[in-house]
């Protein structure tokens, strides 16, 4: 399978290790990725907040670029990009007026037909394939993992259409397939406040703090995420959250692709584990994981 890779803005800067680990994991899973040349930002929340058409046309621009490539669809790694790209397809497919407006804005018609897949979806497909277990070369047993899905990966279900919006399981199944231990916790679909990350920092601190606190209370060793915005709030901001809320957290947050990469035997350096604010290496070693 070959995909047109849409990394999204964060993977070019604050989430470089997500990009690196995604490329490594994809290679191990036999997925061929070719980055969409000159893709542009999906517009994220600010675009649809300011103009509905802008929120659809920006992702449609990149989808049109992807359409010219000979692939099985677009692969995204960010939950917000995923949501916006899928929302664009959904709107163009279901709303004739919007389709026309998008064509007028872009100066070119887009039919809404390029499939958009999140790396997690493809990983979920892969773990069900025969031979997956043979790829696992590093034992993760004993590692307790809280899977954090956040908002836009599973909501609204009529747009994303994969996994249960209230109690999703795809990351948990992945954790189990890698031999680690998924923990059942309460905050897996609560919002981290990403849309307010710059403008309402106190709200983000509270929301993200509660998520991390619940992971800690459930005695998870690490939290895994499938979105760079979630990661930025939960990891990069964690020291600041501790100070703001007067609590002690120290919860390492990994991208699920990093966990996948660990199981496939890549080194901590290759997976960019050193780029995290909360160093995950001590707890991984404590659980007997050989890195």
């Amino acid at each position, binding site marked *: 399978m070959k995909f047109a890779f849409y990394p999204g803005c964060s993977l070019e800067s604050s989430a470089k290790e997500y990009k690196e680990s995604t490329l490594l994991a994809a290679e191990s899973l036999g997925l061929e990725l070719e980055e969409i040349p000159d893709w542009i930002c999906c517009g994220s929340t600010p675009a649809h907040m300011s103009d509905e058409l802008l929120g659809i046309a920006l992702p449609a621009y990149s989808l049109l670029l992807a359409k010219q490539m000979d692939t099985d669809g677009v692969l995204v790694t960010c939950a917000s990009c995923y949501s916006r790209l899928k929302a664009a397809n959904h709107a163009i497919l279901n709303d004739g007026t919007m389709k026309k407006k998008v064509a007028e804005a872009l100066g070119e018609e887009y039919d809404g037909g390029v499939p958009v897949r999140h790396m997690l979806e493809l990983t979920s497909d892969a773990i069900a394939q025969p031979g997956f277990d043979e790829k696992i070369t590093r034992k993760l047993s004993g590692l307790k993992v809280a899977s954090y899905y956040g908002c836009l990966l599973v909501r609204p279900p009529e747009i994303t259409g994969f996994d*249960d*919006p*209230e*109690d999703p399981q795809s990351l948990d199944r992945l954790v189990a397939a890698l031999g680690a231990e998924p923990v059942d916790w*309460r905050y897996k679909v609560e919002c981290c406040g990403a849309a307010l990350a710059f403008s309402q920092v106190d709200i983000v601190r509270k929301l993200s703090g509660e998520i991390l606190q*619940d992971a800690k*209370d459930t005695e998870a060793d690490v939290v895994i995420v499938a979105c760079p915005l979630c990661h930025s709030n939960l990891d990069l901001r964690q020291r600041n959250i501790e100070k703001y809320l007067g609590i002690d957290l120290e919860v390492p947050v990994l991208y699920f692709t990093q966990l996948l990469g660990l199981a496939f035997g890549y080194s901590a350096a290759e997976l960019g584990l050193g780029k995290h604010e909360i160093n995950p290496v001590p707890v991984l070693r404590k659980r007997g994981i050989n890195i």
Partner: protein
Amino acid sequence: MARIGVFICWCGSNIASTVDVKAVAEAAADFPGVAHSVEYKYMCSDPGQTLIRQAIKEKQLTGLVVAACSPRMHEPTFRRAALESGMNPYLVEMANIREHCSWVHEDRAEATTKALETVRMLVEKVRRNTPLEEIRVPVTKRALVIGGGVAGIQAGLDIISAGIPVTVVERTPSIGGHMSQLDETFPTLDCSQCILTPKMVELSQSPLTTIYTYSEIEEVTGYVGNFKVKIRQKAKTVDHVKCTGCGICVEKCPAKVPSEFECGLADRKAIYVPFPQAIPNKPVIDRPNCIYFAKGKCGVCKKICPAEAIDYDVEDTIVEEEVGAIVVATGYDLIDRALYGEYGYGKIADVVDGLQFERMLSASGPTGGKLIKPSTGETPKTVVFVQCVGSRDDSKGIPYCSRICCMYTAKHAMLFKHKVKDGKAYIFYIDVRAGGKGYEEFVKRAVDEDRVVYLRGRVSRIFEKNGTVFVKGSDTISGQQVEIRADLVVLATAVAASDGARQLAQKLRIGFDQHGFLTEAHPKLRPVETNTPGVYLAGTCQAPKDIPDTVSQASAAASKVLGLLSSDELVREPLVAHVSESVCISCFACEDTCPYGAIERVEWKDPETGLTTEIARVNPGICEGCGACIPVCRPKAVDLRGFSEEQIYSEINALSDMFKVKR
């Protein structure tokens, strides 16, 4: 030569304000075959009917067209009037110039034209009407009740009270239904079992009653007054004639499964009696959960039974019954737990549904009437009740109100406070619907005397952390988000149609709505009848309702049954299909098409050739006159009495003639 009388009704101003009735009467007088045409203010009134009766005699009329309201309203009135003057009632037709004309149009000229066209069409039809005789069929004086809950029990009791025998078919091993699971009932707080069990006993002990438990309806054929029913008796594996009900088998059975009666709060054995007051009070073996049936080993019950009543080899049996009327009382189920992921329904032990809470309240329940947190067995101090869980929720596919939850939730909160004096009860609601007798007072009592706190808002999410259940709701009156840390949460889950109701409806050829509730013939005026004559509805199979309404409807259904079975013969309208024997080519396409199973195959000897062939015949007792057989009959052997092809084409031709005139 036809001499038709046309009678145009004003219906006060209902018709006359939109239709120029005088002009219609005048124009109709010139229609071919019309001998008399008049208008009058109220045709259905006594003077109006007298006008018709006199005209029939004086003008020697051969047919009537009454242009007035819908035939659903007054067709019987005018047909009776005709009969009183010696005219065959099937020579009378109504032209609907009210519902189909004056009520739905504003332009007077156009409405008048339409009324005239309608009258013209009916005149052409009546010119071709023939006298018809009513169909008389014999009646089987026995009733079938499907479902042994309170609705079925009440209907059964009312029917036997008139001396008519009744057969009750119940799917589970005992009659009693959901009412036998309840603790105390609103608004009087009387004990549910205490008021139900005397009825169960009375019904089961009557010599007029036959009860088939652990049984389901296999097939229904026949028609009103003469149904033939095949009942599948699932293999009980226990011979109830030999069994003494000693219970030793139940005691010794090693296989445990969650009890349906206790809503999963306790286990039962694979050989079991669902509850202590069950009728019959003899066990059945639940084969899929029995070790002997799964593995071929065990056999403890057979070894131990002193009456030698266990027989592993018995199979399902089919019994046939003939009945004249059927009451459907199949009750309800609660919604699928998977619908409410956000409430942890089915996942969090301390989140229960209303029926589970009833079992906890019940002195004969799994906790002996003690309220507990299922996770720990401790007494809950803070209980949150959530209403409208599923009900009034389009996103879950249930737009309707379940009708009983407001009341039973008030009752639950009240009973909780009676048992746990220092407890706190919170109810999340959207609207409190307490329209029944004594209901509003009951809800007030929960608030005023028992200090139940009502919070006006829907709950968004329920989760559990370290044994505490967090309920995230809102109170829209104060504009606050509300988070309550509860020991126990009780969900007022929506009432859903009983599993299998749709399939049963298909067997009975009765309607059901998109949610699986069975459809009454008219929501206001025929609430217990179905569109299939002789089949009646009682209780929650028709729509969610409480015990008082269920019992009322059951008694109403019984009275309909008794009305039907009170005469020796049934009189039916003769508007049925019939087959011209010599034209039928024996393709039996009509048989495949008929939704009522009214087509029979009969041997017929051609009087001209002397040859005998198998041809189709319409059983007039079953035929509903729907006409579905007519277009599929290639040689045009089938026709409908009262609505023949000739009659309908003449109406259409009359209409097209009028259009030609207009152009």
